[in-house]
């Protein structure tokens, strides 16, 4: 325990029914490999059991510990405290989502938007034919990059003012379906993307792409959606004959 230093965590606190949120300060002993999530669970364990946070996998796969650390949206489980380089670490819940408690936001509106794309979880395009698989497993699977953490929506400046904006994650998911329709008619979802509160509402700040912890590049997907919509010559995609083009 020789290589530990004390770091102050300034943590956003809010319980339902409170008038305003406030910040609480906690001193935490931090080692070279301590993550923000480690520190927060330590606070919960030894200092304040009422601190609410959400996490699951500890390795950037589940997308449940998305939060703002020193003004940047990150996954707390893979954010090293020392690498932040600040004496005080400010921890806040994601923006642009209702706060349920302390660091936990309501992901309901996010999922409700995300689900409209009806994108399958597994990619087909990148399965390598004949690649090695474990005994009894017929084929390997490649999941989609998006871990549905909500970080992109938090980073998006437009999601902050237009509550109806479909948002980067859902638009990226729509573009994935456009890229791999798998026999599905993409007309209806391209019509979703063509909505005024969808692909055209983006103003190219690329904050979502910068913040994404999983290399989804939502803004790049939105631009590809636009290119596709533009190539259709401003016609409503739903006006096209049934059946996907690609």
């Amino acid at each position: 325990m020789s290589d530990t230093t004390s770091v102050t965590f300034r943590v956003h606190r809010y319980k339902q029914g409170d008038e305003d949120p406030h910040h609480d300060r906690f001193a935490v002993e931090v080692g070279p490999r301590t993550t923000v999530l480690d520190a927060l669970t330590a606070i919960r364990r030894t200092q304040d059991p009422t601190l609410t946070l959400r996490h699951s996998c500890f390795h950037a796969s589940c997308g449940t510990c998305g939060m703002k650390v020193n003004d940047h949206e990150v996954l707390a489980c893979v954010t090293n405290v020392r690498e932040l380089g600040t004496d005080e670490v400010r921890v806040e819940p994601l923006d642009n989502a209702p706060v349920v408690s302390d660091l936990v936001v309501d992901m309901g509106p996010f999922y409700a938007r995300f689900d409209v794309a009806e994108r399958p979880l597994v990619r087909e395009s990148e399965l390598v034919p004949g690649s090695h698989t474990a005994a009894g497993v017929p084929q390997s699977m490649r999941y989609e990059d998006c871990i549905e953490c909500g970080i992109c929506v938090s980073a998006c400046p437009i999601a902050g003012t237009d509550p109806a904006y479909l948002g980067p994650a859902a638009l990226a998911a729509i573009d994935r379906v456009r890229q791999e329709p798998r026999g599905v008619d993409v007309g209806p979802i391209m019509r979703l993307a063509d909505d005024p509160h969808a692909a055209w509402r983006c103003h190219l700040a690329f904050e979502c792409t910068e913040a994404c912890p999983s290399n989804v590049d939502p803004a790049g997907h939105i631009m590809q959606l636009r290119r596709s919509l533009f190539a259709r010559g401003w016609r409503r995609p739903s006006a096209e004959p049934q059946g996907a083009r690609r």
Partner: protein
Amino acid sequence: MTERVAGADRRVERQGRRRGVMGWVDVRGRRLGGWAFILNRLTGLGVLFYLYLHLIVLSQLAVGPSAWDSLLRNWFLNPVFLLLDVVLLAGLVIHGLNGVRLALVGFGIVIDRQKALLLAFGVLGAILIVIGALRFISDAGAK
């Protein structure tokens, strides 16, 4: 050890944090593209305001030669106004170059290299603003 954070009554519970127009101009945690967004918005609104101011001022031309020329002598050749002209030029350059970026990226012509494009335009814009500013200042000395 508790300190209050500004916020309306139970607002975070209903809408979440940083909802609203302040999110547009809040530079904390913003990266290069976010800055481009903020600058594009501010310069756009600023130049639009200037456009109407300009159109109103031009009505003095209809009044006659003396009205315009005295306006020129007493106001527009003043160093303060020349400084404002440099601000205007900077706004036009930033908005114009960023607009080209938005057109190139927004139509899906350049997607993968958008960040390089942003950096290149940033450098080009800075050079154009400096050249323009020097030109304005040297012109001011000529009249």
